[in-house]
């Protein structure tokens, strides 16, 4: 009886003539060998940025958020921009693991582990911003419905900001357990092949005694499917709720009913771009060329261009609605002729160039399949998506209903420092993950090793 179907026409998802043991070796190699010079240089740079960010956060907490570039008109700026940007980036991981699992997309197996790690680390960065924006982060537990020093004073469940708390914390914890359950069999593999006693002990604790029994695998498949089923609406709900922060307000340019699907598509768009950026680096540094192939890059680019389509429609709708309303205030929304020629013209045009013009190159197959071009375009999309959030927040707030309050925004060194710090923290976590965790879901990838390689190769010969 064949346990797997070998397709004679489907291109292999893993390059080279590999057997199960080769996958084990390739995945355990970065864990067992010492980190290289490049890793240490990257780690020191990331750690320095993280420490600088930490110093800026302590300065903010000590002095108050007056140290930021905020003013009475623009009272949300870099903090919420960074929050939405990081949450958006955190959307690709669970989408790849959950939604692509439901669609039985096997190509996800080479990239899902690292994308999920990216999700978790990105959501961690995102959660920093609302907490420090509270001004008194030691009271941040007040957002949870637990008794506090005021007695029965409950958080307001009618508020989109509280919905955010529940959405982000649920997304973080559910993504983490989904990620960890998939890691257990791979930790068991590392436990069994590691030779250093301390390493063996750590992986033994993390593997929870996994034995790879038939019943365990059956339960594993079932629980993965259940978690995928419930994570799929969760992924879509999180950015929908983040968009409610704006859509339920009365600020012009924010109170738009198009925001929930537009934000979700934008999050997937930026999340996949970040996966392209990170895997572009990881592929070379961790020698994963056989596992992250042109097919993976092309498929991710297809998702990027598809979600761009949704984002593009939202841009056009926003522009037309602002123009058709005939309201002079609407002419200063982030997508209007006023925005393109006003004081923030540069932010508007960076968004247009990075998010609208450059991604069009992905319609061409040669560019879509190119590692270098995909990497370069993904960086532009990351920049563009940051500016999209900056424009929505700062540009809309800068020209409010009261012309006498119109003003600009200039970030302080603390604003910039905290943003750089979150980058540092993100890369510190990602670099540590790269040398201590199995970066590829080897136990799942082994299931497709025989699914396309042999017959395809024979046909090619």
């Amino acid at each position: 009886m064949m346990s797997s179907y070998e397709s004679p026409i489907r291109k292999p998802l893993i390059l080279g003539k590999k057997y199960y043991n080769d996958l084990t070796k390739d995945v355990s190699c970065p864990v067992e060998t010492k980190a290289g010079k490049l890793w240490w240089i990257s780690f020191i740079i990331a750690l320095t940025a993280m420490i600088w960010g930490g110093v800026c956060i302590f300065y903010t907490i000590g002095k108050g958020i007056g140290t930021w570039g905020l003013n009475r008109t623009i009272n949300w700026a870099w903090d919420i921009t960074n929050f939405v940007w990081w949450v958006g980036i955190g959307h690709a991981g669970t989408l790849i693991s959950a939604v692509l699992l439901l669609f039985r997309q096997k190509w996800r197996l080479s990239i899902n582990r690292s994308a999920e790690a990216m999700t978790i680390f990105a959501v961690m960065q995102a959660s920093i911003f609302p907490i420090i924006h509270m001004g008194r982060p030691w009271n941040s537990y007040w957002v949870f419905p637990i008794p506090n020093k005021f007695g029965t004073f409950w958080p307001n469940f009618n508020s989109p900001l509280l919905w955010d708390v529940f959405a982000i914390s649920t997304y973080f914890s559910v993504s983490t357990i989904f990620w960890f359950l998939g890691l257990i069999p791979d930790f068991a593999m590392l436990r069994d092949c590691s030779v250093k006693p301390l390493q063996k002990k750590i992986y033994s604790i993390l593997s929870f005694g996994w034995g790879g029994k038939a019943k365990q695998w059956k339960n594993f498949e079932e629980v993965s499917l259940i978690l995928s089923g419930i994570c799929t609406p969760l992924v879509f709900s999180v950015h929908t709720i983040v968009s409610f922060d704006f859509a339920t307000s009365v600020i012009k340019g924010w109170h738009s009913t198009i925001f929930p699907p537009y934000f979700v598509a934008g999050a997937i768009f930026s999340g996949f771009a970040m996966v392209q950026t990170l895997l572009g680096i990881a592929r070379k540094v961790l020698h994963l060329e056989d596992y992250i192939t042109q097919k993976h890059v092309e498929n991710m680019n297809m998702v990027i261009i598809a979600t761009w389509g949704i984002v593009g429609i939202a841009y056009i709708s926003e522009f037309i609605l602002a123009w058709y309303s005939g309201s002079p205030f609407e002419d200063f929304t982030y997508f209007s002729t006023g925005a393109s020629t006003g004081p923030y013209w540069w932010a508007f045009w960076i968004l247009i160039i990075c998010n609208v013009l450059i991604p069009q190159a992905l319609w061409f197959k040669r560019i879509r399949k190119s590692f270098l071009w995909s990497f370069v375009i993904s960086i532009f999309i990351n920049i563009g998506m940051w500016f999209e959030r900056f424009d929505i927040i700062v540009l809309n707030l800068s020209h409010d209903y009261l012309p006498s309050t119109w003003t600009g925004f200039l970030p302080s060194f603390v604003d910039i420092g905290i943003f750089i710090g979150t980058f540092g923290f993100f890369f510190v976590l990602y670099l540590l993950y790269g040398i201590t965790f199995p970066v590829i879901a080897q136990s799942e990838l082994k299931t497709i090793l025989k699914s396309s390689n042999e017959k395809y190769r024979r046909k090619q010969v």
Partner: protein
Amino acid sequence: MKNIEENRCRIIYVLYKDEEVLLKGIKILIDKGVKIKEVYTPFTIHGLDKILNLGKTSLSKMAFIYGFLGMFLSFVLTWYTMNYDWPQNIGGKPSFFWHMNVPAFVPVIFELTIFCTAHLICISYLIKCALFTGSKDQNPDTRTTDDKFMLEIIDQKISNELINFIKKSGALEITMKDL
């Protein structure tokens, strides 16, 4: 190999190098009436559960119940905090009746339903598979998480004939232990 003493309970570990050979071997042994206690594999083998007659898991039903539990908890939480214990007039929204206030609670109800389902199903899965932090490794051979597949047989009627049969089925290695 030593002569095998009849009617003595033994544990046999049979190692295979390929899942196709393993599945063939299992079928042959089941046809011979040998009871297979466990199969250890480095990854999921589709069809193995049917051959071993493992039956359906109850995890899906449990997830459904946990979902309802989470939803019920969120109903109670929103009603108690917002309508019963300390009703507040927030932006003129109705605050005295839960059914009038509920549209604003939908996001929290949804998130708590997912939260409870995911965490409780995860705990149930770990308990069902006997997976706990620091527990002893359950696989008898370290190669079963790498590239080898292992059968565990506990039987009293193990004869030389059967062992030869297992060997012929493509077994790479056979280890026997007294229970």
